[in-house]
């Protein structure tokens, strides 16, 4: 008897769907999000494996790539960070839309 439908743990079949990235700002942000995700993942791993040299090298190699992409993004779309970590063009750009929940 096929009882898979009764099994609450049975995984729903979901086709992978990727949202359309329909503008340059979101495309540039996606690259930052992808690189930063790698950094987050390596960061948590290194917290519990501080002597893993290979992981540390991978982490350190992400940092300049991430910084470079953040700088390119900020040139076009304004600061990604507040409180002294990003400069702003005139007039003060930090308050400009879109905010993350509206993108």
């Amino acid at each position: 008897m096929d009882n898979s439908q009764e099994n609450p743990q049975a995984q729903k079949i979901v086709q992978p769907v990727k949202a359309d990235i329909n503008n340059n700002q979101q495309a540039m942000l996606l690259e930052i999000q992808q690189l930063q995700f790698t950094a987050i993942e390596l960061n948590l791993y290194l917290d519990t494996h501080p002597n893993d040299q290979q992981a540390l090298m991978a982490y350190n190699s992400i940092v300049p790539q991430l910084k470079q992409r953040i700088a390119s993004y900020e040139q076009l779309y304004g600061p990604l960070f507040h409180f002294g970590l990003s400069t702003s063009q005139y007039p003060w750009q930090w308050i400009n839309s879109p905010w993350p929940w509206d993108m």
Partner: protein
Amino acid sequence: MWIYQKNLEYPVKVCGPNPKLAKVIITQYGGPDGELSASLRYLNQRYSMPTDKAKGLLTDIGTEEMGHMEIVATIFYKLTRGVSPQQMEAAGLGGHYAQHNHALFWNDANGVPWVASYVQATGDPITDLTEDMDAEQKARSTYEHLIQLSDDPLVTDVLKFLREREIVHFQRFGETLNDVQGFMNSKKFF
């Protein structure tokens, strides 16, 4: 100190308004096993951790969970944007609309507001790290239930990302628990 970064950790897109789905997803914002509970629990427990590894990990996972709270908030916001009071009511969000309009609020899928007793800090690092592992599993289960309930494939994609993060956090907490146990056993009490 915390610094805000003006982007989500993972992009959130939705297929359209869906207050019925929003009503259940809100539990990962302010329910017992949601992201508010997670971030506050870890960021509060770190002060009584005995090792640098544990202090670092709780700081980092607590911070990532704040980012997840923002992702869940964005899902709710996008699923309810422009939804009429009548549609909110029909989706079971009449109570939410009466008290909060379209604003975000920390409650569970049944509208029960968040309380601090969802989280604990015993000052015993073994107990607290065990609670953290338990919390990650409860959050994973909840995300699996939400994936089962989701009829929006774009939201499901985000829920799957959040579910995977719980698994990674569980793994890292387990490693930290072993490390802290080793540290406690190496201490001699006379």
